[in-house]
């Protein structure tokens, strides 16, 4: 390595380290402080907990005074069901739009790409009315429906790109073999889409899990609250129970991190597969 290369490499790493600190810092801060007593949170917010400041009071309060486990399971149900539907319908739609030419296929593709550009929140009022009249107000189903609609356009867009990279000969070979179209999709195409599906899964899950807006307007009773909404009850207008807020937030972060760790290898393969042939 020449000095010039070394200098380049060091500067690139400095930038990446700085970016990582910026991204991870707040999360680390939240998790760290959730294990401290209230006075230490404000006294020395940047210090890790030590023997004198360590406390689980936040977690105790969260479990005692709220239905955190219920919120948790609500969030999990909504996120996982939405993800499964987005992936299933997204992959099927992407396959249909890239593989078959049918009347209106171009219009349909265009319509779906509009969904990428127009934020779904613009339709909040209409969605609320629709859910009301459909009797789905204050149900998890309403959330799932909204999130599927929100996630589909992008997932179709990404998966179409990946499907186009699967050699055409493979589908033709399967057709010559007499494999029915639906089985070609599920047994030849879908297994080859695994990295892409992992990528789309992460991109779908994170915004759903973190969403506060739609739970706020579509759910009202405690039994349908999600984690992000449940945390709000510790944020008061006059007093905020920071111990509980930080503890609940830490717990809310956990599943996303776990899913990311599980999918990260596939995710990286998915992100780079277009770049390196």
């Amino acid at each position, binding site marked *: 390595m020449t000095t010039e290369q070394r200098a380049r490499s060091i500067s690139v790493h400095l930038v990446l380290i700085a970016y990582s600190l910026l991204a991870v810092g707040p999360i680390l801060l939240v998790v760290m402080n959730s294990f401290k007593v209230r006075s230490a949170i404000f006294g020395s917010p940047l210090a890790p907990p030590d023997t004198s400041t360590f406390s689980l009071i936040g977690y105790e309060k969260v479990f005692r005074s709220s239905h955190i486990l219920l919120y948790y399971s609500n969030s999990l149900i909504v996120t996982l069901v939405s993800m499964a539907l987005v992936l299933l319908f997204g992959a099927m739609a992407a396959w249909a739009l890239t593989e078959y030419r049918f009347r209106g296929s171009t219009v349909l593709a265009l319509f779906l790409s509009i969904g990428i550009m127009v934020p779904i929140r613009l339709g909040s009022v209409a969605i609320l009315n629709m859910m009301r009249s459909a009797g789905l107000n204050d149900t998890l189903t309403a959330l799932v429906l909204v999130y599927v609609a929100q996630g589909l356009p992008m997932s179709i867009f990404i998966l179409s790109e990946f499907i186009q990279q699967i050699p055409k000969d493979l589908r033709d070979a*399967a057709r*010559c073999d007499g494999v029915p179209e639906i089985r070609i999709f599920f047994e030849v195409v879908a297994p*080859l889409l695994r990295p892409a599906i992992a990528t789309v899964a992460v991109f779908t899950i994170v915004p759903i899990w973190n969403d506060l807006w739609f739970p706020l307007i579509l759910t009202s009773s405690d039994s349908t609250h999600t984690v992000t909404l449940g945390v709000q009850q510790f944020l008061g207008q006059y007093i905020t129970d920071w111990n509980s807020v930080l503890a609940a937030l830490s717990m809310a972060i956990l599943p996303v991190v776990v899913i990311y760790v599980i999918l990260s290898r596939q995710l990286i393969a998915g992100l780079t597969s277009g770049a390196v042939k």
Partner: protein
Amino acid sequence: MANLRIEQLNKRYGATTVLNDVNLSIEDGEFVVLVGPSGCGKSTLLRMIAGLDGASGGDIHIAGKLVNTLAPAERGIAMVFQSYALYPHMNVRKNMTFGLKFTGVPPTERERRVAEAARMLRLEELLERYPRDLSGGQRQRVAIGRAIVREPEVFLFDEPLSNLDAALRVSTRVEIANLHRLLKSTIVYVTHDQVEAMTLADRIVVMNKGRIEQVGKPLDLYYEPANLFVAGFIGSPAMNFFEAKVESIEGGRARVTGAAFRGLDVAAASLSVGDTLTVGVRPEHLVRGEAGAFAAEGIVELVERLGEASFAYLRRVDGRMFVAEVRGRQTPAPGETVTLVAASPDVHIFDASGLRVATGTR
């Protein structure tokens, strides 16, 4: 096993015509090779036989049955792709049996067919491997195995050897020929390589720009090409062409002259005085000498030595080049002026529209 009949087949993509009135009849058990330059529509024709692409017009019959509207799997065909198209996430055994599940072949029968194909193609050791762990030649054999287990009426091959290195290409070529002898099935085989075509085919179909130029036995195409395109395409190095004119006709013999060769007498047949012709002679039919029906002179510019034979590139008097094969150890030196002659059966005459003129020399 079955015969194959193609009638007035057309394929258009928008305004571009890819196949133009293709008519072809293939006998039961025949090995037919479609050959032609890249982009002439060979793959398209094969895919239409397979049912992967629809026709813009015309009929395809397999085993006497009109198959225009049948799906690929219902046509009794199996196709081997240039890219092999093995399912990457299935091992060799699964690659071969996957399709059989859907065509109602019972499991024991599937196993029997796989075992037999594996024995025939020396794949027994590889059955549990995945495509990524196979060499190019092995993948090729798996692709052929996958076609064999379907026990099709017609095998379709699309440039199956073009991804192999030269040595493997030769040995796989021999294997495919053996396979045809063993299975006695109808095979339609696409290649742009004329050596493959000549060595494998019972009959060759030469295609150009979406049309069939000539159909015939390999040596018939070589010795009696129907037109300039086939004459130039079959044979390597390509046939030499010389512009010529009919100077006079006398007593049933036509005197053909041109700027770059000495006058030539051929049977007059359908020729008339003043006709513009092209005279063709293959490099391997030219020998050094003075006496011959055809004689041309040139200055040697370059000699390619291949061992048994060498190719001399000569500049003609009209400034263009021609090639002659020289056998043995004595090769002409660059700069030398050489006269090359050919016997009259080896001289091909084509008329102004490029069609072969029967001059009764063969």
